[in-house]
Each structure stands twice: as structure tokens, then as C-alpha cells.
């Protein structure tokens, strides 16, 4: 039987089941081919900085429909969507990259109200060049996450790196718990091997990998996220919105139980062997000759119930005080300039967490950072 309108010719019968079988075979082959080729650079293909402006901070968020942002694990795509990837570095630019957690990324803050945004607004000149600050913070607390970002960011020719950190980023036991770390197992294993981080490359936090997980079907979520990230670029360009700014929020806790524990320990000694100073030190290798200014970020100092035991929900006093001492000694040992601004922001300028600041709080911080940068020698 001949189907009319058959494009293959009037004599060629169309066999639907054969057509279906061929389609299925092609689909299977495409999946196998994709898994075999394992294309790792897909995330670098981006509409950002080409069709739409790059984002001022990494993509992050869960409620995508409301604020045109999403969390994804593809570090290449995160960088490709960032304004840092917009062309090559201008010759007269003093480029400063800021690493850190959600306080640097700026939860509840507009991009221009973060520490990077405020420093850019000040139009600082450093070492005779106009300074441009790039927000490379990401809202999970882990030094391995920071190192992973620094490792890639070093390719962007920074002149200075500001590494904001806090004690919560140090426990070895939680280094790989951040989803963006756990879902970048090959990248993190490479860091562990290259920098001898002393972490378990087979940590159960890494999801098991299989050939199936590398197929189009297995990576459908990642691929869909890449497409959605590009589409949300249109909305980012159109609105400048990248997170929800609620009219009200639950303020950070000020009153506490009489609990002196930190990371499962009640003290009185903070064990350096349980902290990831090795990861911090690896930052020096990752940064190469680029100077790193280490910043111990501001924390909420509560005056509420049991505040003689705890500074805030995160930190008992005994642990945090020892940590500050260790961090300053570490900076001295490794030769990094160090800025300890832990108590510079009043308690009234914290928002929903012991490390999240109001715009006023960010301004205080930005002033401190600005002074510290200007006090650095020019190389």
C-alpha cells in the first residue's frame, strides 16, 4: 500500500511500526552517544553576556517563577552567567573577586546593596586603576565550595581576592555537605588530589555515578536547568530581579537555650584537627601570585537570654573566641593580610541570620573593607 504524499517517493510504503522502531533506536543511540562523549563544557554555552547582561551574582534560588533565578550545580554555567565572564579584562581595571557565603551573595539584599555592589558604587581607585568588585559569594557555608569557586575564578585574572569566611565554614565534617559541592564530585575529587586536602574522595555525600546518569535521560534535570537559566536571563535583563525581597522576615534569634555546643562538641577546646585550615591554605595555591585578603565576617552579637554562653545561634563564645585566635595565627603564618570585622556591625543591622546584614550593615562592612584594600601594597 502506498501512502499519498509520502515524501520518500510514490512507491515507498510507510510502515508506522518501523518508523517507531527507528525513532526508538535513534533515541537510544543519541543517549548512548551523549553518555560516551560526556560533554562537560555545555554549561559554558550561555546567552548571558551575549544576548542578555551577565548576573551580578551566581544563580541561586528555589522559587524560580517569582524571582527568575535557580540553583544549579554546573559551575561552568554559574560562571558563564556571571558578569565576570563578560569579555576579557580591561587593561586599566583593578579586578577584585569576593568569595564567601550567603552574606557575601546577599540574601535579602539587592545586588547593588551587597558588599560588592556598595564597593562598586563607591568607584574606588586602587593602585591607580578603577576597581571593579565581583560578587562570587554562594549561599552555602563550606571552604571547599569557596576553593572550588576560587580554583575557577583564578582564570579571570584577578588583582586581589577577598575571602570572607566564618567559623561555620570550617568543620571538616560538613565540607562536602553543600549540594553544589556534593554534586560536583569529579571537580571536588580533583581539588582533593591536587591540593592534598585530606578529605575522603569517596565520601558518601557524593551521589553514585553510573553510565545511566550520564545519558540524556539521566541528565535531563541538569539540561533543563541550563535551558531555564538562559530563559531566566531574559527576565533578569528585563527586571533586574534575582531574589524575592519580602516585606517582613523572621529576625535572627536573640535568646538561646543554655547550650554551649558547637558542631557536636561542648568544649572547652576547639580542635584544630577538626577544622579545614588545610582547605583555606590550598587557596594560596589556587590563587597563585594573586594576593588574598582574608576577612573574618561580621557576626551577630546578641545581648539576649544566655548570651553570656553564646554570641548567636551559630556560635558559643568559647568556640568562636578560639576560632578567631586560630584564624589570625593562620593568616600570620601563611602571610595573608587579615581583616577581622567580627564585631563591627551592631546587632540591630542583622536580618534573618547571625551573618546576614541590612543595607546599613553592609555599608559599615564595605567601609572597613575599602580601608583594608587601600592599606595593601601595590605589586
Amino acid at each position, binding site marked *: 500500500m502506498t501512502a499519498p504524499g509520502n515524501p520518500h517517493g510514490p512507491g515507498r510504503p510507510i510502515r508506522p511500526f518501523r518508523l517507531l522502531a527507528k525513532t526508538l533506536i535513534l533515541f537510544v543511540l543519541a543517549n548512548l552517544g551523549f553518555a560516551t562523549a560526556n560533554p562537560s563544557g555545555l554549561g559554558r554555552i550561555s546567552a548571558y553576556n551575549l544576548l542578555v547582561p551577565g548576573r551580578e551574582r551566581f544563580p541561586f534560588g528555589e522559587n524560580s517563577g517569582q524571582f527568575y533565578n535557580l540553583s544549579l550545580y554546573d559551575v561552568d554555567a554559574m560562571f558563564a552567567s556571571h558578569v565576570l565572564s563578560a569579555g576579557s579584562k580591561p587593561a586599566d581595571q583593578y579586578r577584585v573577586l569576593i568569595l564567601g557565603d550567603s552574606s557575601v551573595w546577599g540574601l535579602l539584599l539587592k545586588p547593588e546593596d551587597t558588599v560588592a555592589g556598595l564597593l562598586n558604587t563607591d568607584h574606588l581607585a586602587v593602585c591607580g586603576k578603577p576597581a571593579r568588585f565581583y560578587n562570587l559569594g554562594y549561599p552555602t557555608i563550606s571552604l571547599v565550595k569557596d576553593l572550588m569557586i576560587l580554583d575557577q575564578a583564578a582564570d579571570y585574572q584577578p588583582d586581589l581576592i577577598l575571602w570572607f569566611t566564618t567559623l561555620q565554614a570550617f568543620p571538616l565534617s560538613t565540607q562536602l555537605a553543600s549540594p553544589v559541592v556534593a554534586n560536583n564530585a569529579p571537580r571536588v575529587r580533583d581539588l582533593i588530589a591536587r591540593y592534598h586536602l585530606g578529605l575522603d574522595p569517596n565520601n558518601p555525600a557524593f551521589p553514585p555515578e553510573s553510565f545511566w546518569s550520564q545519558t540524556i535521560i539521566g541528565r535531563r534535570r541538569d539540561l533543563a536547568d541550563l535551558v531555564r537559566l538562559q530563559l531566566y536571563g*531574559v527576565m533578569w535583563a528585563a527586571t533586574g530581579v534575582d531574589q524575592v525581597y519580602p516585606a517582613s522576615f523572621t529576625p535572627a534569634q536573640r535568646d538561646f537555650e543554655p547550650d554551649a555546643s558547637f558542631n557536636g562538641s561542648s568544649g572547652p577546646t576547639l580542635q584544630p584537627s577538626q577544622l579545614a585550615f588545610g582547605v583555606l591554605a590550598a587557596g594560596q595555591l589556587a590563587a597563585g601570585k594573586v594576593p588574598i585578603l582574608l576577612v573574618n565576617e561580621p557576626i551577630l552579637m546578641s545581648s539576649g537570654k544566655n548570651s553570656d554562653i553564646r554570641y548567636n545561634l551559630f556560635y558559643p563564645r568559647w568556640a568562636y573566641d578560639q576560632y578567631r585566635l586560630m584564624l589570625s595565627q593562620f593568616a600570620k603564618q601563611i602571610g595573608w593580610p587579615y581583616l577581622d570585622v567580627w564585631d563591627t556591625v551592631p546587632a540591630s543591622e542583622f536580618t534573618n541570620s547571625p551573618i546576614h546584614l541590612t543595607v546599613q550593615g553592609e555599608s559599615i562592612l564595605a567601609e572597613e573593607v575599602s580601608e583594608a584594600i587601600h592599606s595593601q601594597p601595590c605589586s
Partner: protein
Amino acid sequence: MTLSQILIGGAVALACGTLLPPRSRVYSFLAASVLAVFWFQPALPLRGLDFWLPVATLTLSIFGWLFTVPVSSRREAQNWVAAAIVLGLILLLGLTRYLNLEPILTASRPPQFEPILGLVAAVGVAFFSLTRSRGKSFAGLWLLTAALLAVFVVLKTPALGIAASAGVRAVTGQPTNLAAVSDLQWLGFSYIAFRMIHTFRDRQSGRLPDVSLAEYVTYVIFFPSLTAGPIDRIERFIQDLRHPVALGQEGWLAAGRRLVTGMFKKFVLADSLALIALNGTNATQVRSAGWAWVLLYAYAFQIYLDFSGYTDIAIGVGRLMGIQLPENFNAPYLKSNLALFWNSWHMSLTQWFRSYFFNPLTRALRSRKNAIPVGAIVFVSQISTMLLIGLWHGISTNFVLWGLWHGIGLFLQNRWSELTRRPISAWARSSPRRTFLEVIGVLVTFHYVALGWAFFALPTPSLTLAFLRRLAGVP
């Protein structure tokens, strides 16, 4: 409809259309559609309502048939079989309440069985009585039409919807302060109501063919077109039902092509565009005129691809069952004037309004003793028709404004065409000039329609006005 519902529906359609003998085909279509009415119904916060609304759909369909069928045809045995299938399936689905499983084919656990049994018994008794009744049923038809329109108005009017939801909540003992319009999401009611009203009007005018209960209910709730149309005509539908279009190799390919195209349009293109399409939130956030146009264009293509994608899926699934559903879209954004656009956008709905409102109204106005100028007739009939089409989508100021926008557009285009037909014909003798006019016409029409979507997509006139100002670059 979700992707899995479409794929399973397609498989069921194929099985019903190809594997079953012709005699049982209508009953299988009926049973599949009855089950689909429950399966497609979204879960609702009002206790038991996501079960009772499908029951109401089926009950209305049965009474719709009773009031439209000739008295002589009511008692035929085949109608008892159809009634038994519909009512039996309701009872069976009600009994799934007692299975210790997740809800099967219902959005949530069915309500207590006793009221279901009571309602089914009541419908059965009414069915028995009415099949024996020898009275004419025009009063019943008017009553049912009024009931359908009343429910339609409640569902489409936010304030009434909230009030109705609060009423139901009071009955079920749920908090009335949480009442919302979305509590009353009645799957496919707009389409079901318009199909039934079409049969009522045709019955009153003597044009309705004699159909069995199975054919009538299947027509009203035919599952491929249940959620998003098209609104077929019953005389055309039952022709296919009685003499299905042979599937054959060409049919396979045509059905497959429509299904794949529809799913690609809906789940790839439309769902992607939905992320950047105009809505009540981003309309207030957009920072420049250029980006505002991008959002508006995205909405224009998203709504087209979403709706026409569903139509493609419905036509593809229908084709697998041997039913050739009517087309709903014919490249509407490539039309060079607004009248042509409305001849190719949601064609089955515009055809419905043309048949049951526009044409009768125009005839009535023309046949008045006191002659009305042609321009006035065109104005009144086009504005009122488009207003009604706007209200069909929802009873709100913005839908009224959207209807007015198109009504005025159609009127102006009609008058403009009358005025300029001769000079334009004289000017556009060469092919390049005709092409030029065609391209200009397409661009103007598309942008007129796209601007109209601002009324459709946004919830309030003030927001729409602010957005239109943004489009014009006015801060």
C-alpha cells in the same frame, strides 16, 4: 493535562479505536471519557468536590440528552446500557474509597459511598421516569440552559466564585475565610456547557439529529477535547462516531505527527516561553520599553503555542480513535487583518458564537421595520459578540476591555475596508505592491492582537494601562 495523561490517553485511544469491534466502540469511548472526566479533574481543597464535579458533569450530560432526544427514541435498550455504564462507573469509582491505595483515577479519596449511591439512585429514577414521559421537554431545555449559564457565571466571576466556595465550605465545615475562586476549578466546564447549549439550540430549531445516550454523552465529554476543546458540532461528531475515519498508514502518521507537534508546542515551546511571558508580577517589574515588548511577544506566542499545542494533541488522539476533530487554529498570526485573524483563532468557539449569537443578532437587526444603518449593525453585532467572547474567558473588567478592543478593531477594520477597497485595489495591481500590503497587514494585525493580550494577561485595568504606558516608553 500532564504528559503522562496524554501518553496514557493516547494509548487508550489507540486501543479503543483499533482493537475493539465497531459495535462496542461507542461504549468504550463513553467509558474512557467517563473515567477521564474524573482522572483529569484537578484536586480541590473543598472536601469531596473533585469527585462531585465530575458527577455533576455526567448528570448534566444525561439530562441534556433526555431533554434533547425525541420522545420516541428515549426508551431504546441501548440507552439503558449507556446509562448503566455511566452510573456504574461512578459507583465503581466511589467504591475505590475502600481500597487501601492511593486514589485511582480520582484526584483525591472519593467521599462516603452512601451519598454517591443515593445520587446515582436518584439519577436512575429520574432517568427511568423521564424515558417514560411523553411530554415535550422545551421547558426542561430552557431550565437546563439557564442552569448552565448560571453555573458558568458563578465560575467565571471571581466575587461569585469566592462566595460559592464559602458556601460550600460552610456546608462541609471548612474555614470560610480561605475561600478562593480556584476552589471551584470545574474541569472543562466552559466547553461542556457550550457543547450542550449547542445541542439545545439545535433541538429547539429542529436541526438536532437523533442520537443515542452513549453518543450524546461521548460528544459532550469526549476525553481528547475535554480540557481545551475544540468545540465540535454534534452532527459532525456522530458521523465520525458511527463511521470512524479509517486509521490506515496515513492516519497513523497524521495522528503521530499531530501528537508529537502538539507535545513539542506545549511542553517545550509554550512551557519555556511561559517563564518569560507577561504576567501580573513581571508587568510591574519590567524596566524598559524594549523588554516590555519582549514579555508581550513572549505571551503572544506562549498562549498560541500552548492552546494550539493542546488542540494538536486532541486532534491527534481523536484521530487514533477514528474521530476527525475540527481544526481550531490556522496560522492566526500570519493573517493580514483582524477578521481573518478571528477566522483562524479558536475557530470552533468563534464558529459557535457566529452561529448562535452573531448571525441571529445581525439577521434580527437587518429585519427591523425601522432600517438601521449598516455601519450601526456592524458596530452593535461585532462589539456585542466580542464582548461575549471576552466574558466566556472570565467575567472581569479586563476581559470586557479585551472584548471591546477586538470588537472596536473589527468594526474599524470593516469600515476601513469598505472605504478603501477601490483605491487600494487600484493601487495594488502589481505583485510587489500586493505583497507589501500583505506584509504590512500581517504586522499591524499581529501587533493589534498582541497589544490586546495585555488586557488578557493582566488582572486589572490600572496595571494594564501602566504596562501599555511602559510599552510606549512613557515612564
